[in-house]
Structure formats: C-alpha cells, structure tokens
C-alpha cells in the first residue's frame, strides 16, 4: 500500500490500524508510519484512497436512514 500523502510504501499491515469507518464497510482508517497522515483505506483492495481530516466522512452518512428520517419530517 502506498501513502497518498508522502508516497511511503509498505505492506498494508505496516500502516497503523486505527479503526473502521463502519463495521459493515471495507473502509478503515490507517495511519502512515512515515508522515502520520490518517488514510482512508480500502481493506478489500489493500489501497489507501485519501487522507482523512476532521469532519470528513469518506464513507458517507452514518447509518443509512438519516435521509429517511429527514423525509419523514418534510
């Protein structure tokens, strides 16, 4: 896997595993041991897809039915 920020390359498990985005999705957060950026990682493909900053949710809405709840209110 290659860090999208500093291009550090190593097997995926060398990137510090932080936590999942959602347990039922294959996106997780890992940390680059070289530049320490938090990376959204596709665990199925073993690829870093992007750096993740505060407030960013590369996996979308939390649980999938927030939209439904909003509809109900409108």
């Amino acid at each position, binding site marked *: 896997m290659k860090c999208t920020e500093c291009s550090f390359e190593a097997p995926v498990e060398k990137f*510090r595993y932080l936590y999942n985005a959602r347990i039922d999705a294959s996106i997780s957060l890992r*940390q680059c*041991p*070289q530049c*320490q950026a938090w990376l959204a990682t596709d665990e199925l493909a073993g690829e870093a897809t992007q750096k993740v900053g505060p407030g960013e949710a590369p996996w979308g809405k939390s649980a999938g039915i927030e939209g439904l709840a909003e509809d109900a209110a409108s």
Partner: protein
Amino acid sequence: MGRRDQWKQVQSGIYDPSLKARTVEERETVPDIACGLCKNFAENAYASDGRGLCRVLKIGSDISASPVVYVLEGEVGYPAYFTTNAASCTHFERMDFIDTDGSEVADPNYRRVQRQMENKFK
C-alpha cells in the same frame, strides 16, 4: 513451585512499588535504548504509569543481568517500564512511530503518553 508461589513471583515482578527510592532525575531519564521505544513493549492500559509487558520475553527474563537472561516460553510476559534500559537486550527493535497523543485512547502497541516521552520527542 505451587500455583500461588508462581503468581507471587509474577506479582512481585510487575506490581511491587519499587519506585520508592527514585529521585526526580532518575524518574526523568529515558535511556536512548529504552523499553518504551521498542516495538515489543506493550504498555499496560490500567496503570498508565509506564509499566508494561514485553511481547517477546517471558517472566523469568532479566535484561539488566550480566549476562542477560532470555526466557522465551511462558504464560506471562516479562515486566518492564518505559524507562527500562534495554541497551543489552538483543530483542530491542526501535519503533518507526510512537504516538504521544494522549487525547486519543489506550493503545498498548503504539502509545506512550508519559511527559518524559513527550519531552524525548520535542
């Protein structure tokens, strides 16, 4: 040795408050090759005073002895502190990245949040 005696030995290795005699200077010193800088050190998440267990060496080891005693089989890890001098330990492996950010939570593998560790990386 009976069960109780075996565990007593473990207990005295891990939890004996042998910190009594330490001076401020001793407390502040993190050796350049210290257990806290090693990949194989797992920090205790209950007593975050910097104690932990080695993931390679087992109880009965002694890295301060001369010659060093290595025990690699056993049911409990070798107790160490983040400030334990590991200069003589052949199993020392320096970590690529040490997390000193105490605003996140326990991570025995990566995190070292003691003030002395923060200072070491300043």
